[in-house]
């Protein structure tokens, strides 16, 4: 099979892969922040809720998480009388991946937050900032910087996990590859998958480059 055919077919799935990646990451980060916040509150109930959530979410293979999102979530919504079956598959894919990754991100934020020097917060209070300014202007930026290497790893993991949306019939890059392979009875499977691997690798290399640039930008902010 012509290489150009393989590449164009696979790239036709790229927008779905990237959409999944970007939105799942945003939502996962939002949920993760919420869970991290819960677990850091001085409350046994909040802590235990966050632990339970993490235990369930982190013990669930992403494949099952996607199935749960696609088939389980609508059932749950129906219980309160909302029909979300007509949402696009892409949305469910994003939900599944977001929930799946929220656990990891929450842990990344939590540990980063804990490793921010407490003195930074105190110094902010001492110059008269109120606690929320101190948090958002001083602690949060440092937390993100500390979490950056972890976040990078998680984003890369997420890129790879997007390949699992085949299980709910979303046509991403991976599905395009398997379908192309099936069109030819799997004869060119190896070639197609090698190309597929290379494209994923390029995406990851690009992400690594972005993170390297961010790190370089903030190289003097050594937290």
């Amino acid at each position: 099979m012509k290489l150009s055919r393989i590449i164009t077919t696979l790239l036709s799935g790229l927008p779905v892969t990237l959409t999944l990646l970007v939105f799942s990451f945003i939502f996962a980060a939002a949920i993760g922040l919420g869970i991290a916040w819960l677990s850091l509150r001085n409350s046994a109930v909040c802590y235990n809720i966050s632990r339970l959530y993490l235990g369930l979410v982190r013990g669930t293979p992403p494949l099952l998480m996607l199935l749960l999102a696609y088939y389980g979530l609508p059932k749950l919504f129906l219980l309160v009388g909302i029909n979300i079956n007509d949402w696009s598959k892409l949305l469910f894919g994003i939900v599944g991946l977001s929930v799946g990754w929220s656990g990891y991100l929450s842990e990344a934020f939590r540990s980063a937050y804990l490793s921010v020097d407490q003195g930074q917060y105190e110094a902010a209070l001492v110059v008269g900032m109120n606690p929320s300014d101190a948090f958002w202007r001083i602690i949060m930026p440092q937390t993100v910087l500390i979490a950056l290497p972890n976040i990078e790893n998680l984003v890369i993991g997420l890129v790879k996990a997007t390949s699992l949306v085949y299980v709910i019939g979303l046509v991403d890059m991976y599905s395009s590859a398997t379908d192309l392979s099936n069109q030819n009875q799997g004869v060119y499977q190896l070639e197609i998958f090698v190309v597929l691997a290379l494209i994923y690798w390029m995406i990851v290399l690009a992400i690594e480059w972005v993170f390297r640039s961010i790190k370089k930008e903030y190289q003097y902010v050594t937290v």
Partner: protein
Amino acid sequence: HNSSKANSNSSVTTISVAGPDNNRPYTYPDNGKIGGYYGALLGRIDQDLKQYKFKQTTTAQNSVFVGLQSGKYDLAVSNWWYSKDRFNTYLHSTSNGLDDLRLITKKGGKTANSLKDIATKKLTLAPISTDDARYAFIQDYNKKNPKYKINLKGIGDQSAGDALKQVSNGQYDVAIYPYAAYKPVSSTSEGTKLRVSKSIGLENSYFLLNKSDKNEKLLKALNKELKKLKDNGYLGKITKKYLYENTFEFPGANSTFNTDPTK
């Protein structure tokens, strides 16, 4: 309840249909719709049954049934064969197609002309996707023929091409496939190394539906429609077109097609 949605024209009922995304030539993704034999069949039914509108999607086969079971999909299409459990779990139509089963071996290697051959000659059978009807078919055979049991191995989603490659390179002795799945492979470079047996039997396929009042009603309409399409030769026509041979012209096709497996 579930996904039925009143259209602007309130007399039209929407049916969500799902098919596996890697079961050429029966079903495959085709611009968000179902392609292949069942794509054609559904298209025709959709045209004929004015009161229904079929919303189609493709996904992994196990996922099709998670969706069917949970009520997300009303109707699952592909060449589903009979199994008692399936028919108990879901509503089922009358037959909607006729598959011609073959055994595929390597040219110049060991040969098999029946399932019993596989057992007696101690041939290794290429693994079958556990979601695939053929898997249940062999399980069923093993149950009925405890003396001539076949060693059955399961595998995840796998294309016919992959499985047949394993036969052509000698990893396994024999594979079982409907003729329609074998045919496209036969012309590939690996495929030319393969030998195909005569028909070892015909197998009916059925629609499976989620159990609901809505679908009971749909089922009646479907069965009536299927009978019509069989009688007017449409099924034979698309079988010839998509499945490479018109199984309806095979000897005994008629009686097989009209048997009720639950009896």
